[in-house]
């Protein structure tokens, strides 16, 4: 144990005696590791928003759409589709919607021709919508059971439409085919299904009363037990059909976002590989300088051998010097990389991701490591490994030096 301490002392003295050189060869690992950490950290943070959204919205929302058997126009479910779906034990809640076609929506008279050419989607929804979708209102309230029961001319608009119309605050009316609807609320952006962002949402009973479309929904959103999303998705068409002839196509809504979040990993691997390359070049730099150092310090090596230090101790001394450079460089590089990620995330307004669930170069980290700075550890580990390899050759060369030849006797 004391020998180890002595070795570290000798290595530290050797490194501190040549500060500028030590710092210079440390640059390699610093640049390499900071590049790796920054590359992975930045790409992770850049899609941190997306992942945060996914985490907030959950990956257990299934959309079921009434599918057209060949030739049928505007297929629908039965009126009691929500009840049918809720009979599944793995369903936590569901809500039904229907798109109402052929409606001209006019926020104000002057824009009539524009909105005739580009109609705004009109949807019906029930009172479970907010709970099942787990979406918030920006202002106002949702359509309630009173609206449904009395077929009230109330409407909620998506935030995109609200911004377009200037509807965020205050009571407004909107014309649907010349009928005035009161806008009672604005619903927040819903990333999993953007159709609501620019839609006018009205009670199903009102739609039937005013436009004679019937009460049958064409889409059902189902919140499943987290653990049984796939099973629920599979069971959904049967539960809805109940022996009838209703076709249902299903989608797990988070799948699309997850694919988008994963799409960045190619870029991430390329940049991280470049960092790794820089690290390897840095390692070659360490090996070079250490080899020269061994030649320059051959007298020192000779005298240490004469003082009774064996070959292995000489080898260890130089290996430890090399590893110390790699370790210190790696730690510094990881810190620099983290700094870059934090700073860039702040500027860009990203969610800073310190320790992504990495799947880098095929190394899949167990989920319980999330929360410790895995990226940091990987960077430092890579620098450490590089410096060990870099130090091997110079160490062996140092150990092979013959003291008689380096001491110039006689």
């Amino acid at each position, binding site marked *: 144990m004391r020998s180890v301490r002595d070795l570290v002392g000798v290595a530290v003295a050797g490194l501190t*005696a040549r500060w500028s050189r030590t710092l210079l060869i440390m640059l390699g690992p610093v640049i390499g590791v900071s590049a790796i950490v920054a590359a992975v950290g930045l790409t992770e943070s850049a899609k941190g928003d997306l992942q945060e959204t996914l985490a907030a919205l959950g990956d257990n929302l299934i959309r079921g759409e009434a599918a057209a058997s060949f030739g049928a126009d505007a297929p629908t479910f039965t009126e009691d589709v929500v009840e049918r779906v809720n009979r599944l034990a793995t369903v936590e809640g569901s809500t039904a919607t229907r798109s109402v076609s052929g409606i001209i929506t006019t926020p104000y008279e002057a824009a009539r021709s524009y909105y005739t050419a580009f109609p705004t989607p009109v949807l019906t929804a029930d009172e479970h919508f907010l709970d099942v979708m787990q979406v918030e209102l920006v202002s106002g309230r949702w359509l309630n059971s009173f609206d449904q029961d009395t077929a009230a001319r109330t409407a909620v608009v998506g935030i995109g439409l609200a911004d377009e119309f200037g509807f965020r605050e205050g009571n407004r009316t909107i014309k649907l085919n010349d009928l005035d609807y009161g806008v009672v609320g604005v619903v927040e952006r819903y990333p999993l299904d953007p159709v609501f962002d620019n839609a006018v949402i009205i009670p199903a009973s009102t739609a039937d009363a005013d436009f004679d479309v019937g009460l049958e929904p064409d889409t059902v959103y189902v919140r499943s037990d987290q653990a049984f999303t796939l099973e629920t998705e599979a069971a959904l068409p049967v539960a809805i059909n109940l022996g009838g002839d209703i076709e249902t196509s299903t989608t797990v809504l988070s799948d699309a976002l997850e694919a988008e979040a994963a799409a960045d990993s190619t870029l991430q691997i390329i940049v991280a590989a470049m960092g790794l390359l820089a690290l390897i070049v840095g390692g070659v730099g360490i090996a070079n300088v250490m080899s020269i150092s061994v030649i320059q310090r051959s007298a020192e090596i000779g005298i240490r051998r004469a003082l009774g230090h*064996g070959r292995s101790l000489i080898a260890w001394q130089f290996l430890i010097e090399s590893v110390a450079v790699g370790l210190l460089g790696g730690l510094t590089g990881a810190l620099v990389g983290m700094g870059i990620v934090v700073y860039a995330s702040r500027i860009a307004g990203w969610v800073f991701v310190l320790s992504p669930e990495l799947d880098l170069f095929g190394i899949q980290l167990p989920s319980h490591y999330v929360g410790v700075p895995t990226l940091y550890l990987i960077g430092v580990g890579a620098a450490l490994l590089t410096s060990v390899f870099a130090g091997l050759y110079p160490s062996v060369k140092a150990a092979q030096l013959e003291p008689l030849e380096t001491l110039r006797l006689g």
Partner: protein
Amino acid sequence: MSDTPLLRLDEVSRIYGEEVKVHALDGVSLDIEVGEFVSIVGPSGSGKSTMLGLLGLLDLPSLGTLSVDGTSVADLSDHDRSTLRGEVVGFIFQQFHLIPHLDARRNVETALLYRQMSPRERKHRAMGALEVVGLAPRHEHRPVQMSGGEQQRCAIARAIVTEPKLLLADEPTGALDSTNAANVMEIFRDLNDGSRAIAIVTHDPAVAASADRRISMKDGKIVADDQLSGGAAVSGFGGTLGDAS
């Protein structure tokens, strides 16, 4: 001579080269006892340096046996031979060979590394050795801040701090002016107190004359091995000749 001298060379040859063999040392037999003060003299190419490498356990004989306290060195591993060298031999070189980035005390401490010794103990011993050579007040100075004489005294401190049984010096005054040379030889005479053997390789007759025994070499052979009474004329230290037995 006792049965197991400190160092024994028995018909030792050291041959360099594969095809053209050079006998740097040619069948030399020699005993060195604790308490002796030996000088090894001879012209360039006489085999002095080869002898030094062998006596210092830095080299191994090609033929014959070299034993320390009766144990043949040839059978030892590098690690064991290094450890033995660290225990038995203290080196002093013409060019001092101090480690430039360490101060005087740390240079001396280098000889005490890897010996399971606490830093405190190591420092204490190093300061003691520097005291012996009169360099304790300058223990924080690095080699570049010291004169040649001071550097050589520091090197002597490094050599004696391990309390070796053999002090092996290679032209210790060769790089010094006459005042410093006299100073260093004075230290050697002080160190010749019977507790160790001192061997100095030199071609300076004055240095050789300080010793009690002079081994003269030529062409890889010992041509003369004289007990000198002259050493006694320089000072009273020559009287330790009989201490070896």
